[in-house]
């Protein structure tokens, strides 16, 4: 029978940052919210993240970063998505960000940034409200 599309999410950790507890907790919370979550582990390059997102046909990429290298990796990921014609994928970030960086990240197309202390329910609520699975026949 006609089945609703399942939201597919990629949770990725760009760069030289091995602290993935936060990413795993988010992955788990999104699973419990009924989404299919692809988790690829630490130390991902922007290229790897974008290729994975394309091959897995995800609706959302969640980038977890604590290293401070977001000003390089986030814009690079957005650039690569555009180059590959995949900039319809929503991208969000989570982790530690100096407040003054957040507007710049949003400027390059990151839809939302979640900082420490954000409730899991709030992230899930945001995803439900802002990310819709790709429409049928949009291909």
């Amino acid at each position, binding site marked *: 029978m006609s*089945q609703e599309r399942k939201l597919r999410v990629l949770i990725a950790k760009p760069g030289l940052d091995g602290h993935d507890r936060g990413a795993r907790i988010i992955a788990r919370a999104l699973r419990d919210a009924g989404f299919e*979550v692809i988790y690829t582990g630490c130390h991902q390059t922007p290229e790897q993240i974008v290729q994975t997102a394309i091959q897995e046909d995800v609706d959302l990429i969640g980038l977890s970063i604590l290293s401070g290298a977001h000003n390089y990796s986030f814009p690079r990921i957005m650039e690569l998505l555009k180059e590959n014609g*995949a900039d319809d994928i929503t991208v969000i970030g989570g982790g530690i960000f100096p407040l003054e960086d957040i507007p710049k990240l949003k400027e390059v197309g990151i839809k939302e940034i979640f900082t420490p202390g954000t409730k899991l329910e709030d992230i899930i609520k945001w995803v439900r409200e802002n990310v819709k699975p790709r429409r049928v026949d949009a291909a």
Partner: protein
Amino acid sequence: MPPEIKQEGDDSMSIVEKVLEGDVRAVARLLRDIDDQVPSTRSILQQLYPHTGKAYIIGITGPPGAGKSTLVDQMTTYYRKLGKTVAILAIDPTSPFSGGAILGDRIRMQRHFLDPGVFIRSLATRGHSGGLTKSTHDMITVLDAMGKNIIIVETVGVGQGEVEIAECAHTTLVVTVPGLGDDIQAIKAGIMEIGNIFVVNKADREGAKKTVQELRNLLEMGKKFRMETGATNGWDPPVIETQAHKGIGIDELCEAIESHREYLTTQALDELKKIMVKRALHQFSETLKDELFKEMMRRMEKKGMNIDDLAAKIADKEVDPYSLSRSLIRDELKEPESAV
């Protein structure tokens, strides 16, 4: 309605071309549509089907934590060195409560992410039992048509009875690790019967030799039975020790797969045919069931019948599921009442 169908056809034509050219984005999206049971995928698959039959399909199954993903990663490296292109379908379980899933098989395959000769797709079971997803067979069709030489299907971590992989793979690997239980586990029916090659991974662990010996004994005992039933004639499933995380035993494993392929394509053409027919039968019967079910649902809805209401009636014992199904089918198919 009719013009819409025509439009769909035109649209699907270009998707077919893109898939045949190996367009990764088009393939990825089509796989999603197949998984989500989008109706237009049927006509696309129909057009792709004649372009299939070239890929060699390897199934890999075994309990959770046996090292299946790591083996797939190492095998992929082996095949890429030979210049063969690889597609991987890696399956993980869906939560029966939330419907969500964590798909983590890619963690072990990171080094292939940027290789254009490798396509990896993570899948969730979505309630399908048997070790695969409902969509696996159709996805193999797409990956075959896109021109991948080798398709590796990694099942969900299985227990004992998930044997569907043997219905789609040319060569099925059953992976185990030392210390999973006594030898009575190995003589139970189920996955121990479907392996063309057995792999004892983590072979540096205590008890590995014992596990290998138990498997060999079991296979020796089963040999007579296999020959009598004609299930296999002339192929003795080897038991191979690997330490996947170190890459030890991978050459031997891939050479064993090649021997099995050679066996199928030269000595045992009838067995190969049997595998193909089994797979075709599975695809055909599943598609038929699906289409019939959808057609029935469509007709019932048109008559204002709601399946949830009917289910409630059955639960209240107003009617039983057997006579209800039969009468609905009889009415719709306009068959004279069956004598049975």
